[in-house]
């Protein structure tokens, strides 16, 4: 058994993070001391590492909760987990696509600025953004 501080050090997180995961229902102490201090077992270490790894793969806490439920469900199997992972990958690929579009739009804006010494009211980037806002609001009124 280990205290919250030792658990945090062992899994490379802060004690606040451990408390936050507990508040979110992702983690629970195995027991408490007479004085009320939380004590964690080996399972908590494994669970915390699982949560951190899943976060690194882009899973949100609610998705991690779903994965943990699947992990402990007798009725679930590997393909259920795989379909959650595929859905997450699709979500990430869509995000990457959206970010690439944004990056492309920024490249276009950067390219139209050919003189960095111009005063702000002649800034072509700000001008282009303003024109695009005006076009969008006109389009929205139709």
């Amino acid at each position, binding site marked *: 058994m280990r205290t919250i501080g030792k658990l945090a050090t062992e899994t490379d997180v802060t004690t606040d993070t451990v408390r936050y995961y507990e508040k979110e229902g992702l983690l629970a102490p195995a027991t408490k001391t007479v004085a009320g201090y939380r004590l964690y077992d080996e399972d908590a270490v494994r669970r915390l590492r699982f949560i951190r790894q899943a976060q690194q793969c882009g899973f949100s806490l609610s998705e991690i909760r779903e994965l943990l439920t699947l992990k402990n469900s007798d009725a679930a199997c590997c*393909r259920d987990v*795989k*379909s959650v992972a*595929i*859905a997450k*990958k*699709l*979500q990430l*690929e*869509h995000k990457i*696509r959206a970010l690439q579009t944004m990056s492309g739009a920024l490249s276009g804006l950067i390219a139209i600025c050919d003189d960095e010494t111009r005063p702000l009211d002649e800034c072509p980037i700000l001008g282009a953004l303003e024109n695009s806002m005006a076009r969008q609001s006109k389009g929205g009124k139709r």
Partner: protein
Amino acid sequence: MIKVDVFSSPGCGKCGQARTMLKAVAEELGADKVQWRDVNILEEMDYAVDLGVMVSPSIAIDGELVFASLPSAGKLRAELEKRLQQGHAA
């Protein structure tokens, strides 16, 4: 000719059975009218993203995401028949 793309991952038993049932609907309408393609979503992720696929399994018809989960045989048949009629009318 209507083009049906069914996005799923290999080894998904749940999809496998339902897919076979849906494929039979397409075959009943005729291979000259409906072209069926099983797409491995892991191999054609870019194509899936192009069509806006967010979950597996999903079905796209003529390059448009139509079902974000596997529909019943009746729903698929109705959709395909509607499109075939539209095609004849056009």
